[in-house]
Structure formats: C-alpha cells, structure tokens
C-alpha cells in the first residue's frame, strides 16, 4: 500500500527561464512610452498625408518647439504627482505666480538670474503649501489644488489689477540669450527643457526618491510599514511640481519678454491630457517620464497640426479629444494592472 504513495513521475525540474534579449527587456520596461511613440508617429503620418506642403517643411516644427518647453516642464513633474497617487490642478496659478515674482525682480532692476532663483523658490514654496494642505491637513488633492488654483490666480488679479509687465530690457542680455535665444536655429529653451526631462527621468527611474514615489503610489500602507516616510514623499512631489511650474513660468515669460496676469491659464487641461496620452495610468504606482514627454509632444502637435492641415479652427477641439480617447484606449489594451 505504501508504494502507491510514491510519486510515479520523476521529480519535476524547475522551468528554466528563457534567456532574455536586451531588446525584449527594453520593450517590456518601456511599453507605455513605446506605445505613446507609436501614437505620435501615426498622428504625424496622417498629418503628412493630409497636408504634405505643411508637414514636409520646417516652419510647423519650429512653431511647436516654441511652445513645447513650457509643456515639458509641466508634464514631467505632473507624472510624479499622478504616480504618487495624487493630482495637482494648481500648477497654472503657481506658474503665473512664480513668473510674476521673476517679472517683479527684473522690473526692480535686479539680476534676472536672481529673479529666476526667486521664481523657483516661490514655486517650490507654493508646492510645499499645496502639499501640506493635501497631506498634513488631509484634504483631497483634486479639490484642494483646484481651490488653490482659483485663490492664487485671484490674488494675482487683485494685486496687479489685471495689468501685464513688459520686460523688454531683457532683450540683448545674457539671460535673454540663455533662455530666449536660438541655438543651431532651434529655440534654446528646448535644450533646457530636454535637460530637465533627462534629469527628471533619472530621478524617477534611478533614484531613491523615484523608487519611493512609485512605492507610495502603489501601496502607501506597505511603504509606511517598511519605514518610508509617506507624508514626506507626497509633499516632496508637490514641491517638485512647483519647481517645474516655476520653470515653465519663467520660460513662457521669456518667449515674448512679457508677463501676463493670465500666464499659465491655458496649460491646465493640455498638460493633464499629456500625462495620460503618454501612458501613465490614473491609479498610481507606475508612470513614465519619457512617455509623458512624448505625450506633451503629441498634444502640442494636435493644435497646430489640425489648423495647418487645412481644417478650420472649429475642428481643433474635436480632434484634440479624439486623439486623447484613442491613445487612452491604446494604453488600456497595452497595460496590465496588478493587484
């Protein structure tokens, strides 16, 4: 009888994993970003067929490169915020507020570099304030940041009485050349913005901070039990968002050497759309900086692309929405959520 209990088959060998190719692994890790790139490529191909005269010549790309740096500075830190499991709707006002500080410094005859430092500090301080409201006071980030956006913008309007500040004295200065000039016939801001994207990508993928942002967004209870200071990580992502918004504010002011009290207003929805078009899911824990940058590129192209393709401006919103929905459907199919 006891013999019947013996296993008849030979002891199962553990399944060896197939040797992984580097290419395969790259696509596995960067699924979302590669998906976004495909969406972007398809969109450009459609634009090129629809309007070869416009899209096979340089000027259209040049005009996108003017608005892209501002978008990149907003979208990239927003990926951090979404990954940590929050949302920030206050960055347009933070952007306007920080740029305002920069404009005031220049107006008072102080060094524009000092102005930039002050603007970045302002953005980070406002980010810390928003973070404290969400994390320390425990408000919902959706509502608290919406309130902050209205309040900060209202404050700007009250104080400036809606008047803009011209900074034409920045023309022909070192700061003007560094942040508003052209290099190799390209707007210099695009190089700064790309540098920022690379920095943020390293921070997100290769740094302790990025690892903790993902862990907290994934499961804050687990992260806390393993000794991660969850509140600190959350607040720091809002601070980083403030830094990006301040950078975006300075860049957008530098383009035309003018600060408007509405600076930043139009960026709220395109920036948020870019994050999701780029392949960062809404549920937190995972995100992609490269994808976010490609998303920003895609969204920037939609507007100029549709008008340039010969459709009237009335079509812009419709196609804007269509491309967002289509790329979200694509990512839904491409990504898997683990629980």
């Amino acid at each position: 009888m006891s013999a019947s209990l013996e296993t008849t088959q030979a002891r199962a060998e553990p399944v060896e994993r197939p040797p992984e190719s580097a290419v395969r692994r790259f696509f596995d890790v960067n699924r979302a970003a590669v998906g976004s790139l495909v969406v972007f490529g398809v969109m450009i191909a459609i634009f090129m067929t629809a309007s070869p005269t416009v899209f096979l010549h340089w000027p259209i790309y040049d005009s996108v490169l003017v608005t892209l740096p501002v978008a990149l500075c907003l979208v990239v830190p927003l990926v951090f915020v979404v990954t940590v499991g929050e949302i920030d709707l206050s960055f347009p006002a933070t952007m306007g507020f920080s740029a305002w500080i920069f404009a005031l410094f220049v107006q008072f005859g102080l060094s524009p570099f000092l102005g930039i430092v002050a603007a970045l500090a302002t953005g980070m301080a406002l980010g810390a304030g928003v973070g404290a409201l969400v994390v320390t006071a425990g408000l919902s980030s959706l509502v608290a940041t919406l309130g902050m956006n209205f309040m900060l913008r209202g404050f700007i309007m009250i104080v400036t009485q809606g008047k803009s500040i011209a900074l034409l004295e920045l023309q022909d200065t070192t700061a003007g050349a560094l942040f508003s000039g052209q290099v190799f016939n390209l707007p210099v801001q695009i190089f700064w913005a790309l540098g920022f994207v690379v920095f943020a990508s390293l921070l997100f993928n290769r740094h302790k901070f990025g690892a903790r942002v993902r862990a907290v967004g994934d499961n804050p209870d687990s992260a806390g039990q393993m000794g991660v200071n969850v509140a600190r990580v959350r607040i720091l992502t809002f601070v980083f968002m403030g830094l990006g918004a301040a950078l975006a504010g300075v860049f957008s002011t530098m383009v035309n050497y003018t600060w408007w009290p509405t600076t930043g207003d139009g960026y709220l929805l395109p920036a948020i759309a870019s994050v999701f078009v780029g392949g960062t899911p809404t549920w937190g824990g995972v995100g992609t900086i490269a994808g976010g940058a490609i998303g920003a590129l895609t969204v920037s192209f939609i507007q100029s692309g549709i008008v340039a393709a010969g459709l009237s401006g009335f079509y812009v919103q419709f196609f804007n929405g269509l491309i967002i929905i289509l790329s979200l459907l694509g990512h839904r199919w491409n990504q898997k959520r683990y629980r």
Partner: protein
Amino acid sequence: MGERLIELKNIAKTYGRVFAVGGVNFHVDRGEVVGLLGDNGAGKSTLIKMLAGAIHPTSGEILVRGKRETHWNAERSRSAGIETVFQDRALCVQQTITRNIFLGRELTRTLGFLDRNRERAEAERLMRDIGFTSKVFTPDSIVGQLSGGERQGVALARAIYNNADLIVMDEPTTALSLTETEKVFRFVRAVRAGGRSVLFIGHNIHHVFDIAERFVVMDRGRVALQATKEEVGSAERLIAYMERLAHPQGIEIPPSPGHQPEAAA
C-alpha cells in the same frame, strides 16, 4: 535563555475609549521562537504593529536590548533589528521583486542614486536562499505576477536581508498550501539555528505548538498566559486552555430545531 532582545513594559493602545491592547508586558529573548496566540480581536496584530513601529502605543515603554526607546517608528524598528512579515505581506504589487525587497531600505551610490546592480544581485541571492520562486521569475519580475506563496517568499527574503535579530511573522501560513507551509517552517528553523529570534503569530495552534518553544496567549487586549513548551505539555492542552478562555461557562449546544416541541403560535 539568551540576552533580553526586546521588552514591552505595560504597553497599551486605545482607540477612543476602546482598548485594543491594555497594559501588556511582553518580551522576546535572543535565539528563541515565541508563539503568540489568541482569538480574533485579542490584540495580537495591534501588538506586533506597535513592535514594528507602524502604530504608536498610547502608553508604555519599549526597550531594545535593555535600552529604552524614545522615538519609536517603522524606520527605527527596522534599524534596531526587527523585521516584520505582515499578514498582508506589505508588498507593492506593481513593483519588481527587487524594489519590494529594498522597499524603505534602498541600496544607493552617491547622491541617493540606486545601486541597481548590487540590489539585483542581492535580490537574486536572497530568492535563491529562500528557495521560494521558480526559475521563471527574475528579480525584475513584477510581484503582481507571483502566486501567494511566492509573494510570501518575497516578504521573507526582505525580512532576512539585514540579518535582523528578531523576525516577527503575522499569520505567515494562512492561505498557504501544505508544501508552502513546510517551507515557512523550514525558514523559521533556519532563522532559529542562526541564533536569531522569531515571533510567530498563528491561528493554527498545532502549527504554532510545533514551531515555538514559548507561548503567549492574548485575550481581549491582555496577556492571559505565558508558558514554555514543557509547562504546556501538548497542543491539545493549549487548545483546551484557549477554549476555556473563549467560553468560561463551557459551550452549550442548542438542541436542533427538528426535535423541538412545536411552539405555540
């Protein structure tokens, strides 16, 4: 017994006016396996969460190697040499095995950048030591792809990485298969053989009796019994004791409804 590793003195946790743990004295010595028993709601999980620094006691003292701790939190607990395998395993399921093993304790090079090669190599070694995962998985596999037993393996690997002096395991065998349970037992014996301590929380009294050499039974937030294996004698006596705790008057079995006389309407 060896050196007194950790001691809780008159520790209490209240939520509003409800006592979760009310004035408990409790200790673990070096190199012993302590079994913590008790019904649901007896305060076992609250006690070990205080030990892990995940929640703060309302009152009482925590002493590590005889020294009183003042700023006790999850980070301090881990650096004091206490690793906890939580009941829910405290994993981040969308992250890789490596990221979970080094969660809250990342290996870094300069300026806080991750030492990814070292982390990956250590993760590979730990997974092999535990002998839990099949070779299909690499340290880069997402934890969400793993089975329950394999996820438990990741949690155990994380607990042994730092050569912790005390490993606390909250119901580590719940929902595991027979062979996976045996692996957990082998793990506990290996830790014990290395001269380290284990605090083992479980509902299956036979399991706990087999693995532990001293028992602490909690009941409604208090310690009801502390006894060694010799004092207890057998698992059956432990079960009998716990049944008396739960039903001091004995259990009345109501007659089955079929035999009841018809009730007047």
